[in-house]
């Protein structure tokens, strides 16, 4: 029954994504986190507030997120907090890079796709260029947080 646009819509708004939107994970503030940043997309008012806490060995212990905005940006942020846990900072950056390439329709290795886990569910955004910014916002904010933590 569905025409192509309805299919694409279902790809965009997968159950998993709407679930992350409704019930975002890891929404506790992590005041002791070493890396923090706030992201903002003025076009839709999306806000992303991220804290990245790293243990002595350089492994991400926890990521906290408080924000508001559209389903895509908020689901993306929620997924980010889950997938980055246990990764090194290098791996976090690599994941971000792979995700960006995924959304831009550039090449992504099988192994990278696996590393993205649930986040891969956001690839339906590809067909909605205007929403790519929403999906990427948490990831650029995370990169900024890591940058700033370095300098500080």
């Amino acid at each position, binding site marked *: 029954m569905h025409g192509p646009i309805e299919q694409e*819509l279902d790809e965009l708004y997968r159950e998993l994504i709407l679930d992350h939107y409704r019930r975002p994970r890891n929404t506790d503030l992590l005041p002791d986190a070493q890396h923090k940043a706030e992201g903002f997309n003025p076009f839709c008012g999306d806000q992303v507030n991220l804290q990245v806490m790293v243990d002595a060995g350089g492994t991400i212990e926890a990521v906290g997120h408080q924000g508001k905005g559209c389903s895509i940006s908020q689901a993306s942020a929620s997924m980010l907090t889950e997938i980055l846990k246990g990764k090194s900072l290098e791996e976090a950056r690599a994941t971000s890079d792979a995700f960006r390439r995924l959304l831009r329709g550039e090449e992504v290795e099988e192994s990278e796709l696996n590393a993205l886990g649930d986040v891969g569910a956001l690839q339906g955004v590809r067909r909605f260029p205007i929403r790519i910014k929403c999906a990427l916002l948490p990831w650029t904010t995370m990169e900024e947080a890591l940058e700033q933590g370095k300098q500080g």
Partner: protein
Amino acid sequence: MFDPKEIRKDFPILDRQVYGKPLVYLDNAATSQKPRQVIEALTDYYQRYNSNVHRGVHALSVEATDRYEEARQKVADFIHAPAAESIIFTRNTTEAINLVAYSWALKNLHPDDEIVLTEMEHHSNLVPWQMVAQQTGARLCFIPVGEHGALDISSLDTIINRRTRLVSIVSVSNFLGTINPVETIRDRARQVGALFMVDGAQSVPHMPTDVVEMDCDFLAFSGHKMLAPTGIGVLYVKPSVLETLEPFLRGGEMIREVWLDHATWNDIPARFEAGTPDIADAIALGAAVDYLQTLGMENVRKHEIESTAYALERLREIEEMDILGPTDAESRGGLVAFTLGDVHPHDVGTLLDSDGIAIRAGHHCVMPMHRKLELAASSRASFYVYNTREDIDALASGLKKALDYFARSNRTGA
């Protein structure tokens, strides 16, 4: 007879399909579509008499100049301006307001002078004045917005006072839809001897405008919101104020005589139109004005009240709907902004788009007012001469569908 179904036939784009569905265009406050007559004015210009204006001795240049100045006269007539010289062509409303900021305000304002705006201004009637305030030391003051998006003018006499040098307000809000009490505010501005400017971007295209009655010093509006091409806008300046404006952009066309170290200025309005103007789009704006005059601006307004009333009625059927702005159609321009339960405006926009329905989602360049309402964004449907009840029915069903679609994850879990 004003019949949107007949009018639609003049707009080629309305035959277009989006994702295999007929286009329902409800983003008119952002920009309007263009009738055949306007598109033909462009092609006619480029195929028959394209030429630079004002200086040419040859036939093409004479014709282009005549038509360009004729367009100026048409625009003057459209807003009942006493003289064509009062019409300065700009790119858009934004440039028109900046012209006043640079050419009048930066030259004339001093520390402790005050500029009065409203809390519901579009960024284009706010950010230029922030620059003026920063550079001159003048202060910005705001008429607050009260219940249902109406201006709270209870303290008008305090807000507009002897320090006020300029009052600049939006006549119809592009976000709340509110029609502001221009006359009341103007009267107070006149009492204190302040200049009075109107951002008419959302009123001039949609209702009769009479600058003599309105008695404003400046009126800014955009062609692209009134059936004309992108690239052309208008600043109306009251004749008595024209000579007090410094030139803004400088270069060809706006000068009289030039030496290496100084120059003298051309007559008004050429003085304010430096360089080769957007000739074709100005002429096409003339054609858009012709089109609107034929429809009759009273009829345009009447149709818009009807559309808005019907939209309010249909949207109110939806329980989760929160409609912003005045409650009755007569107090509003032809647009309705709203939020829909917990479906984010951006998601509303995407879902409607998939049904071929074009609305706007975001802050509509009115961030401070969104902030005051504690909203990051809203959805907005806006109407024009070619919109039908069917368009509004499509909007209403689309919104219900969007709600259902998003409710899905609540029902099924993940």
